[in-house]
């Protein structure tokens, strides 16, 4: 059973979080300048000696892929978070059947690879649907035919399970005294949840949430394996069209690094709005 700090350690270890951003002051030291010069040389060699002539041709498609990646990221993070709140809450206070259900859901999802879940939904479940004429005729069919709903579903479920565990810790970790204080001043249960418990839990979970969102970004390329054209799929196409091995992958890594960087900076701004001290 992992308590909040546990998840936190691992999430942080796996994802860049705002703490990792270098502080602007004190960044430039003599050895750094040398290292930067070497790095610049390396980048120059990469730009000069490798093949980049394919970029202009694929630029529009890359842009489109990035949009899809971001759309996947945001839609699934938001949906997943909305699911995670009840998942976490139920595990802390719910009646035992719900508690067991939520716990089981989190364990199963966290215990199996996302790639497998994705394929299970798309190739497994998705190929069952057309066998039911009712579904085939329903208004949902045009969507069920597409591949992105399966990607969204799998990523949402996965985010919900991981974040649900975080929210469980966060809910459980809100000091009992703060909740008691709210009760002592006559708050009703709903007011207490809405005004104190939930915001306080989110506040506690925010640093981990940052990490989890970066992890979610890192999980998005998997949807390319079920024919969603995200930036990864675009790059795969470049590789297959041109038979260039390394360059597109390097560009892809660079794109993800930039996306991660932007995400992390955005989160840092958000986190700075409510300062926390110490842990």
């Amino acid at each position, binding site marked *: 059973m992992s308590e909040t700090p546990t998840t936190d350690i691992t999430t942080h270890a796996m994802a860049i979080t705002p703490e990792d951003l270098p502080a602007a002051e004190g960044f430039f030291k003599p050895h750094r300048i040398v290292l930067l010069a070497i790095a610049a040389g390396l980048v120059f060699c990469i730009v000069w000696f490798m093949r980049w002539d394919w970029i202009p041709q694929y630029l529009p498609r890359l842009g489109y892929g990035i949009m899809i990646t971001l759309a996947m990221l945001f839609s699934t993070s938001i949906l997943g978070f909305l699911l995670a709140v009840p998942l976490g809450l139920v595990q802390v206070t719910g009646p035992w059947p719900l508690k067991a259900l939520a716990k089981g859901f989190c364990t199963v999802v966290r215990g199996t690879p996302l790639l497998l879940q994705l394929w299970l939904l798309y*190739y497994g479940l*998705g*190929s069952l*649907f*057309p066998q039911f004429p009712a579904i*085939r005729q329903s208004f949902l069919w045009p969507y069920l*035919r*597409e*591949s992105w709903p399966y990607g969204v579903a799998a990523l949402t479920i996965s985010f919900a399970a991981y974040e649900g565990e975080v929210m469980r810790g966060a809910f459980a970790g809100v000091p009992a005294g703060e909740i008691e204080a709210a009760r002592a001043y006559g708050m009703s249960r709903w007011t207490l949840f809405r005004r104190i418990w939930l915001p306080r839990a989110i506040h506690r979970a925010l640093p981990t949430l940052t990490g989890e969102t970066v992890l979610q970004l890192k999980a998005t390329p998997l949807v390319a*394996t079920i*024919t969603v054209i995200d930036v990864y799929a675009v790059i*795969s*196409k470049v*590789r*297959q*069209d041109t*038979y260039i*091995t390394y360059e597109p992958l390097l560009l892809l890594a660079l794109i993800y690094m930039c996306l991660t960087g932007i995400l992390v900076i955005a989160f840092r701004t958000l986190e700075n709005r409510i300062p926390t001290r110490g842990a």
Partner: protein
Amino acid sequence: AEPLKVGFAAEPYPPFTSPDASGNWEGWEVEFEKAICAEAKLECVITPVAWDGIIPALTSKKIDMIIGSMSITEERLKTIDFSDKYYNTPTGVIGPKSETFEATPEGLKGKTIGVQVSTIHQVYASKYFGENGATVKEYQTQDEANNDLAAGRLDAVQADSIALGAFLKSDQGKECCDLKGMVKDDPAILGAGVGIGIRKGEDELKAKLNAAIKAIRANGTYDTFSKKYFDFDVYGQ
């Protein structure tokens, strides 16, 4: 000497290559590979590689040749080299039985057509159908494309006619789909048949392989094992 590593696409591509439950590979190309290696007196081991990365695997020496129904095209020749062709079959389009359309740009307008990624079919479909109002969806494996056609997520699938034939004969294919026709040829894209992919500059190997292909054609081995799979001459013209 080191045995030569023959790269197969890890994804099943019946009836040419597909693994069975005991992990053995079977299919026409497996028999072809055995015959070739025996003929050329090469020691070969089958090495499954993701189709998607099979050319990089060859150039980075993870494998030494590709026997994977890979058509000889201009584009590929820029990166790797090929032996002479060892089979050549026309390209077809299949679709659900319930619908009727032709395998032409007009017939496929507005439809979603599935192809395997990194194939001549993908290039062809993009050029002839994609630019004329059809949506081309790319799959990692032929199998998945077929499956999605059966699942109703696709309106058509373009592929090698033999692979399509095998699918149409399967339980799944029999039920749902039929052949809509062959596509108009474009040798520049569809290429001059399927050859063994090898690294550039390995001319000695290339010569050996070419000689072996000739030999098994001549001594009847080729026809013997082909008969098990096909009732026509896959070598083509």
